[in-house]
């Protein structure tokens, strides 16, 4: 059951009920295995006090 407040806030962000229902209808796979690779190669994220380059996409 998706609370109405999520639909309301989604609406504030231009998200229709269909868009929200679509995302929330599918479970994502949170299982993963760590490849035998250095953390530097694995980590492609970005912290709040660092940045990503468009060249990384």
């Amino acid at each position: 059951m998706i609370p109405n407040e999520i639909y309301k806030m989604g609406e504030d962000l231009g998200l229709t009920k269909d868009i929200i229902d679509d995302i929330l209808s599918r479970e994502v796979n949170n299982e993963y295995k760590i490849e035998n690779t250095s953390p530097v190669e694995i980590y492609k994220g970005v912290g709040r006090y660092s940045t990503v380059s468009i060249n990384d996409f």
Partner: protein
Amino acid sequence: MNQKSSYIPKQVVWELTLKCNLKCIHCGSLAGKARDKELSTIEAINLCRDLAEINTKEVCFMGGEPFLRKEWFKLGKEVKDLGMRLLIISNGTIFNNDIISKLFQLQPYGLSMSLDGATAKTHDYIRGVNGSFKKLIEFISLSKKVDLPVTVITTVNKLNFKELPMIKDFLLRKNIAWQIQNASPEGRFPKKLMLSKEEFYSLGLFIASIQKKYSKEELPIIGAHCCGYHSKYIPRLGKSPQWDVCQAGITTLSIKSNGDVIGCLSMPDDYIEGNCIDKRISEIWNNPNSFAYNRKFKKEDLGENCKDCKYGKICGGGCMGMSLSLTGKPHNDPYCYYKIEKNLYRTD
């Protein structure tokens, strides 16, 4: 003695100066005046060489406002000549033809600017100085004209939350990357302006919806590390294959303008590991006892919010900055999609 560490810094974030011309309400660094004792040019050049010695991949200049440090170009050139990638985070209001020309010469790997509203009214209010929106848009435009690789960073709070769709429309198909992150009560930022957990969750849905709808050519978008973790429904919003543990001291390293070394600039001074004037950076980085909160993290270190979570060992209790600023404790980030979903949907 200088032991080698198995850790390699992917990105070193270097606060070139704390001096800043803006007065942003969310500034976690309390930027404004330069620190009393900032690194001299020689010390800064030596630091560049030391960063290369520990195999740093990327150096990211930030501030304060990095373009207010007069040697920024010389230091940027040093970084590049040493074979490291250069990135710059600017507030986007300090520029002229000379700066654009020098940026073109340097060809940084990334040039990021902060856009905190879709309108001048909102952006200027958050940035604390009228006219900053107009200057920023001009800087973005000039940078794009010479093909600089531009990223826009939006730090989301209650004041700009509803303007995100308009910012999206502005960025769409402009070949500009968009980094979205959550403001937390560090430095000047008042807690009352922080997103609620439900708003934060909706922000995750927003980023996910854009990633689904648009190609990375149309709108390359990323949620920063704080936009996590282990949601049942929201896919990973960063580019890593997993919801990562905080990378402070693991693949990221930060240096304050006075040489203080810390895992991440979002963390309080209690976490400073040393100063790069007193000790070589390699000595600090390679010390097996440095950054112990992350390098030696174990499940027992998880705070109240995370200790019973089945994913706690993997995400390490989320963003250290969020965790410390909101709860005063490490590994205890309350802004977590997984926990929010458990409350919203009564899921496990």
